[in-house]
């Protein structure tokens, strides 16, 4: 059996390793060993679901998930709705904790996005919960909940409009005491559809000639707002998300295929473009919004 051992931390910085390993050329069934997982954020959880789905589809067998030993991590995964979404993706021996029982501290549980109504549900849910978190933890003005909802709506629509494949969204607030000394909200939106290059190729690949790649496709969409639609009203979503994230001094990065592009704020030392990753299908978007500094 092919084994992928998860690191102690599976988050926006380490999830690439899991995605890279999930597309390694193996035909046998895979065991994902999460026993030593001590910390996972929405990016890590969605990466796990995407990796599991890709492994399942490629080998024809559900990968086996060896759950975390940490009860805290197990409980958190339960509250985020991970095990519910993992049904049909993983084979799992242990008892999956349920999400209910006490008031949830979750900003947005893992929600699958396949149709228009799912986006409405996401916006409804964050409208009810995000206001308090954005004002008390990030110290954003009360009006920020609307812009936050718009970000989620636009980023989720990316799955419906472009991916033509399944996807998920999740968000949670944390206190990054070591990394930043501030609260942050982490938003993750991932799909395993056809990716930016696949979405744009028919319309734009010829113009780029030999330079056409995952990286140039990401640049075309992320920096220049290109889409596969001839309609000039299209392509605004990502541009406006970038603008709002920049206003909040946040970061946004998009991995698609073998490349990752990012808009990097001063507190983050990630490179703006990474190439040479393993060609993972779809698009994986991470947004980090930090607490307002100073004052």
């Amino acid at each position, binding site marked *: 059996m092919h084994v992928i051992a998860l690191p102690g931390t599976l988050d926006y910085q380490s999830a690439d390793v899991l995605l890279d390993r999930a597309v390694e050329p193996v035909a046998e069934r895979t065991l994902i060993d999460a026993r030593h997982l001590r910390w996972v954020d929405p990016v890590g959880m969605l990466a796990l679901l995407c990796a599991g789905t890709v492994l399942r589809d490629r080998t024809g067998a559900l990968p086996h998930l060896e759950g975390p030993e940490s009860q805290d991590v197990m409980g958190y995964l339960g509250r985020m709705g991970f095990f519910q979404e993992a049904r049909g993706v993983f084979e799992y021996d242990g008892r999956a904790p349920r999400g209910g029982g006490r008031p949830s501290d979750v900003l947005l549980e893992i929600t699958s996005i396949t149709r*228009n109504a799912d986006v409405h549900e996401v916006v409804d849910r964050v*409208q009810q919960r995000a206001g308090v978190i954005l004002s008390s933890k990030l110290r954003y003005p009360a009006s920020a909940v609307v*812009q936050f*909802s*718009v970000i989620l*709506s636009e980023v989720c*629509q990316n799955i419906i409009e472009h991916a033509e494949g399944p996807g998920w969204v999740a968000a949670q607030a944390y206190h990054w005491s070591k990394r930043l000394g501030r609260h942050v909200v982490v938003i993750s939106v991932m799909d395993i559809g056809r990716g930016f290059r696949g979405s744009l190729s028919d319309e734009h690949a010829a113009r780029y000639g030999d330079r056409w790649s995952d990286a140039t496709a990401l640049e075309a969409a992320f920096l220049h707002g290109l889409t596969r639609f001839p309609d000039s009203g299209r392509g*605004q979503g990502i541009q406006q998300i970038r603008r709002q994230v920049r206003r909040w001094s946040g970061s946004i990065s998009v991995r698609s295929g073998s490349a990752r592009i990012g808009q990097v704020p001063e507190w983050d030392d990630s490179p703006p473009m990474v190439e040479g990753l393993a060609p993972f299908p779809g698009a994986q978007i991470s947004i980090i919004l930090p607490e307002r500094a100073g004052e």
Partner: protein
Amino acid sequence: MTDVPLDPVAIDVGGLLQSHVASLYSHLVTRQTGRAVRLAIESQLGEAGSASLSLVDLSEVSVLDFSCADEVAAKLLLRYLDPGRPRDAFFVFRGVTEAHRDPVEVVLMRQHLAVVAETAPAHYELLGDRTEAEERAWRQLEAYGLLVPADIPDVLPDPDDRAAFAGLIERRLAFRSPISGRIHALSRIVAHLLP
């Protein structure tokens, strides 16, 4: 206003969202939803006369995303500015709050469009793509409410402003009566026809 042959059409966008898209939806998000609401607006306009002034009311909409704004604002205006439009229509947006302003401005700018919008009770603004001269000319028209052609050189002494004023009529941001030739501010027509 006997020289304004426009049928008034009140369009409650929040109501259309619930009646034409889904009764459980309370936000104007996603392109699909925006398209459905725009088609519902166009259907409502189809029941009006050959020329109309529509008051598109966003008061009951709390979240408006860019994709939806592109459909409900930009594409709606584009359709009725097109020479092949189904009928003559003028639009004023009502209930445009700070939450709506950014999406509406962005989608209008992108398509080089502008619209008259009520951003607070009885307070109107020109939103979207406009020059400084257009803004000045429009403000003068707002201040007067209506202008007769003979007064225009006195009210707008700068030739650039006069050219911009003509552009406002072309862009359907002001109404020139085919009966009297007087030019009406859309806000005044709204106050009269759709109080």
